[in-house]
């Protein structure tokens, strides 16, 4: 097939597919995306050597940890948007 089956409810008019997201979804997405930004913006909170982990000073492993955590937050935000869209069917 060349195009996706048209989602139920988004007819040829295409209105549902161009509808802005509900406010609650926007807030949830905003919070999910803001958490990693805030965590990394507060540089003094992680500028320490201890506690070290496997030889890594805190400063280094904390930021490595956020490399792994951030995709979880962005992916959750993606799922929240996807769910809101499906809810519109």
């Amino acid at each position, binding site marked *: 097939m060349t195009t996706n089956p048209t989602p139920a409810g988004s007819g040829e008019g295409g209105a549902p597919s*161009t*509808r802005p997201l509900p406010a609650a979804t926007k807030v949830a997405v905003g919070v999910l995306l803001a958490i990693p930004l805030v965590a990394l913006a507060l540089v003094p909170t992680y500028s320490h050597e201890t506690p070290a982990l496997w030889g890594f000073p805190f400063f280094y492993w904390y*930021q490595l940890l956020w490399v*792994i955590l951030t995709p979880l937050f962005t992916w959750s935000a993606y799922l929240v948007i996807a769910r809101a869209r499906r809810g519109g069917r």
Partner: protein
Amino acid sequence: MILADGSVNGVELGVVIFFFLVVSVGGFLAAKWRRGPNLHSLDEWGLGGRGFGTVVTWFLLGGDLYTAYTFVAVPAAMFATGAVSGFFAVPYTIVAYPIIFIFMPRMWSVAHRNGYVTVADFVRGRYDSRGLALAVAVTGILATMPYIALQLVGIQAVLDTMGLGGSGNWFVRDLPLIIAFAVLAAYTYSSGLRAPALIAFVKDLLIYIVIIVAIIYVGAKIGFGDMFTAAKTKMTTPTPTGAATGTFITNDSSYWAYGTLAFGSALALFMYPHAMTAVLSSRSRAVIRRNAAILPAYSLMLALLALLGFAAIANKTSVFGQDGTANAQLAVPHLFQQLFPSWFAGVCFAAIGIGALVPAAIMSIAAANLFTRNIYREFIKRDASPKHEAQVGKIVSLIVKFGALVFALGLDRQNAINFQLLGGVWILQTILSIVAGLYTRWFHRWALLIGWAVGMVYGTVVAYQQQVPNAKVKLVNGEPVTTVDGMRHFGSSLAKFPFTDQKVYIAVTALLLNIIVATVLTIVLRAIKAPAGVDATAADQYHSDAPDERVLVTARRETAGAEPDSPASGGR
């Protein structure tokens, strides 16, 4: 031990040539991959038919954003001066994604609906201002050129390590680089964006293998604890002038530097034309959002690579090049040569080399798109046909690459690196027109243009004023000897924030000034009712959240014969 006698390592060179031939053949064959009826439009040549899905976009963006320069320069900065100049790249490449998650889908939607190929196209349509679009286009091209040149600096570091960078005839010395670049130019010309998209697969595979092996090796042979101890010792040891060598962990005087470098660079990242090109070539908004979620996998790799700079410190890696001068860019290539057998060092060097070619190709295509759409068609030949546009784009991509080659061969390496920092200062000044424009048309087009100009001038002047001693370390009879030859400009991307003692990224200060000027002038211009122009975009074009059927049908028609591939809806 590192050879400084100019002998060439045949095994390493053989492996590198093998991989280079593989990707070159791939680059030429890419013209046939998922292609539309012809390459005779910028949509096809410059955006790959706008049909790339999640996986291809992931490789393309990864190949695009994590360049050889990143793989060489970030660890080099870690090696030389530690966390502030090097490790900031880790938070930078993390926070970039939540930011693009928010606004890039809007850009994609409006660009798709209106057939925009570049961000300057969008600015032109949104603000009805040729001047503002020209400013955005020129800034993009300006910031891209030294970036491409820096890819070449990465390749040079590898060639030097293999014994090809020795002194002697400049033509013989630079011939490998010129050949590699000529081949790259040829397949970019014939295949367009499809070439780097295909080669990016090879590049990433190699890079992942290299970094995983390297980290396991470093953990086993050096030990992470010892690695950090060695780095701390080096960074806290004062230099002859009395200042600390570098930063091991940020402190009171470097919090703001670290934070502004990370956030400023993150904001700048997707203003670069090549990043925008990769985003616009994707098939749907969902592809972009999914990529924002999965691209940080590369940041993990980047972080581990950055730490190799510390590993080089612990391993007492020599960074003296073939010409006998110390060059921190050689830290990682030399470390690889020390740690690994020749054949695997060759794989590592191939990874770095190909990692330079992919972004160089995408960047030259992006710069060509900008020139063709926003300068050539706008100011030189207004009735250019799509076929004519594609032809101009191809030729400009050659010129851009040639310019970058001259840049890389002619300029002092240290200079090229500083121009790249300046590139970040420049490109960030377009963010207000672009990102604010995605949400509101409140800002007046003239105010944006003047704000941009003020930010550009301020940023450039302040960056120029950052003088550092022009020091060179040479190996004389086996002993390092430092010579200082006056001061040089563009010595740092950090400067004191006005009226404070805190050093911050110049780009951020310039952007604040830009925003203040644009805001004040907008209020004035709106008060005197200056003509605001006509908005060519419509509100509903910004948030079509599901894959838009009309757009997809059009895209499919344009790429008739492409592999049937349904756009995923929902969370799959």
